[in-house]
């Protein structure tokens, strides 16, 4: 267990250092939302109606651009070989890498959402469900993304390939996340069902992603 926590601590520290991915992802998230707010213009009711979808799409894109950072730096400085060879359960190591990525992107973005929500004119009642969906859904984004990053760990410029692989797999999380956020804001009965499916998607990702990532990492190293 201590190795598990050590990997998370190391990756989180690195992500917040100069040149780390955490603040880049957060800035990208904020800038995407600002772009939308500027593009929509003065129609405040339209803005609050599409605020949750916009925030979700922005969170997805911000996660996406930071995925390459999960394994590529480790691969370049050789620490990935060491990680793979010293891991008793490689899947657990892969899980730790995904967890560290979530802390430095998904959790950070969720924490910044209440402030950014003001820019999109989100009403008070809509904020709670939106935060709940982001908190439940973004771990799934990091887990699925970490799998794609593991698949392409040996490739020098994998950013676009990761996006092509990952976006179709993100579809259910986006659909259920936005669905739950909308239903929760309107007080509709579908809130619970959507939230459950969102949680199920993240849990499925938590099951398959570490195992598949571990297999992919092994084949990327020999």
């Amino acid at each position, binding site marked *: 267990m201590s190795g598990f926590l050590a990997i998370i601590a190391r990756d989180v520290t690195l992500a917040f250092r100069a040149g780390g991915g955490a603040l880049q992802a957060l800035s990208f998230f904020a800038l995407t939302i600002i772009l939308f707010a500027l593009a929509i213009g003065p129609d405040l009711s339209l803005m609050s109606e599409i605020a949750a979808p916009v925030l979700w799409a922005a969170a997805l894109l911000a996660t996406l651009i930071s995925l390459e950072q999960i394994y590529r730096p480790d691969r370049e400085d050789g620490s990935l070989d060491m990680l793979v060879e010293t891991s008793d359960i490689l899947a657990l190591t892969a899980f730790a890498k995904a967890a560290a990525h979530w802390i430095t992107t998904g959790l950070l973005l969720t924490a910044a959402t209440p402030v950014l929500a003001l820019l999109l004119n989100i009403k008070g009642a809509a904020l709670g469900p939106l935060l709940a969906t982001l908190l439940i859904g973004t771990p799934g984004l990091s887990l699925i993304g970490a799998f794609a990053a593991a698949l392409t760990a040996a490739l020098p410029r994998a950013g676009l390939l990761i996006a092509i692989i990952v976006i179709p797999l993100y579809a259910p999380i986006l659909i259920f996340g936005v669905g739950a956020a909308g239903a929760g804001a309107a007080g509709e*009965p579908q809130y619970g069902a959507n939230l459950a499916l969102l949680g*199920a*998607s993240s849990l499925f990702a938590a*099951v398959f992603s570490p195992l598949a990532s571990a297999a992919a990492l092994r084949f990327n190293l020999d």
Partner: protein
Amino acid sequence: MTAKKRQRLIFFGGVFLAAAAAVALTLFALRGSITYFYTPSELAALNEKPTSAIRLGGLVADGSVDYAGNATGDVVAFTVTDGGADIRVTYAGLLPDLFREGQGVVVQGRLKDGGVIADNVLAKHDENYMPREVAEALKEQGVWQEDAGQ
């Protein structure tokens, strides 16, 4: 060695629990309603009516289609029913070929004064395919089931 074994046990136990929880959540969600559209009964049961755009699905009630919405006749009004509740829909635009009384429709629009102002009307097709003569023969023999469309 025992620490390693325990770690493995915890890991695979965790994997199993996560998988079981995911399946349980999915089954829970599928028992509830997660829908492409609302039925009239579901919409009637809501305490707080949605203000944003919705989809409404159901059958076009027999004898409810009224083309005399305005002088030029390009506004059509009809009732969508699911047996439990009815909702009146008004729509200005072209209706699809399959739109007819007793047939399923999905209406996209907004609630206003207890009715729906439609932006778009889609006809829902059922899974039955047969030649016209067969359909007529079935009707004559009285074995026709009027549940088409849902």
